[in-house]
């Protein structure tokens, strides 16, 4: 991600300023949360261009709705809820069910593996992603929020408008179904000897 422009103001302060017409404050909120918003849109729509449109529309809707934003509430899960609804609306229009794709970019995390190790790691990811893509939409979505985007279960509950316990149980069921798909395919998830 690109470098964020620094602002010492926290989200509630920015929301308050934006509510009073400070466009710069809202831009800072966009800057802070666009990465997650676009990613959340992508895992629902499975389409990169759509994901950007969705995120942008969600921010504009959030801006519109600022007057109704509950003071003191967390901005991020509220925004994510709008992103999710917008993305689902968009997906509803699309007949296709696109699959999530791996990036071509080289892995720079985890030190500097040899080209062979990196190729193996990418192959394992490819197989796991194929399994994830075979899951039903709801399972893929919930696994993506929790693991791909690292959204907390509490935030997921708010964004999905369900009880925290529901997130937990749905997550467990989705993992179970993924485990079954992976087991059937015989995919090795980690390098031998790990």
């Amino acid at each position: 991600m690109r470098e964020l422009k620094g602002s010492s103001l926290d989200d509630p302060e920015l929301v308050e300023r934006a509510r009073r017409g400070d466009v710069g404050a809202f831009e800072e909120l966009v800057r802070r949360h666009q990465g997650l918003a676009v990613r959340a849109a992508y895992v629902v729509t499975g389409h990169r261009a759509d994901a950007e449109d969705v995120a942008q529309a969600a921010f504009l809707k959030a801006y519109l709705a600022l007057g109704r934003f509950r003071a003191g509430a967390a901005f991020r899960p509220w925004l994510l809820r709008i992103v999710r609804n917008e993305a689902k609306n968009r997906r509803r229009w699309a007949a296709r069910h696109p699959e999530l794709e791996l990036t071509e970019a080289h892995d720079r995390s985890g030190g500097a593996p040899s080209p062979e190790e990196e190729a193996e790691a990418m192959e394992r990811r490819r197989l796991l992603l194929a399994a994830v893509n075979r899951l039903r939409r709801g399972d893929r979505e919930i696994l993506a929020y929790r693991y791909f985007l690292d959204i907390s279960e509490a935030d997921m509950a708010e964004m999905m408008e369900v009880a925290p316990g529901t997130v937990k149980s749905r997550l467990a069921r989705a993992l179970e179904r993924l485990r079954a798909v992976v087991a059937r395919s015989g995919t090795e998830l980690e390098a031998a000897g790990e």
Partner: protein
Amino acid sequence: MSDRLATPQLERALFDLGRHLAYPDTDLVPGMAEQLTAIRPSASPRTGSRRVLVLAAAILTLLVGGAMVASPALRAAIARLFTLPGVRIEVPASPPPAGRGLDLGERVSLEEARRVAGFAVTLPAALGQPDEVYLDTPPSDGLVSMVWRARPDLPETTETGAGAVLTQFRARPDEEFMVKKLAAEGVEVAPVLVDGASGYWIEGPHTVFVVTEDGIFIEDRARTAGNTLLWSRGGVTLRLESALDLPGALAVARTVP
């Protein structure tokens, strides 16, 4: 096998996978900045060659069941915001192809809609049994739409191809519903009384969407609507879209039990 598929291992692999997906990486701020700047209260609406000037769209804000909490300045900002992104969002350059339907949600039976919806689904006696019933979310209580095909007493609505579409959803008592309408010039919006309750009559093609307290849009159709009567009854907001004139629409609305 079971060892290989232990949950922590699977979770670790998923976290790792999430770091290697082909996410878009466009900075939204520059594109948004232009739109947001366009609605800055101090900015002149005449700057630039924006579509808003071509369309000369008028924004009308309607309230259902409560007062707007936004300040006049914010309200003005919202109004200007919608002249750009509202048009962009609601009236796409390439409208959906015909035959895709009205995007009303999942086709269900009337019984199923009544069972699933979190409110009492009503039926105007004047229209008889609906030809089709749809259920959609959000909102979580459901958005129920009934469709009547065109017939002699219900002429076809150009915008929907149907005789009448009645949509209903529950306005939760702790929420204020705010109905916003983006209307082209020449569209009439009139406050009316429906069976003693306040409502609105909107004549001419327009787009409608509804915002709930928490900013979730529960209606967001990329199409225009025909003549529309909006009213609230027993905590449920109803919206009748048809080619009927106001007396005709009111006559139908009065037969909702």
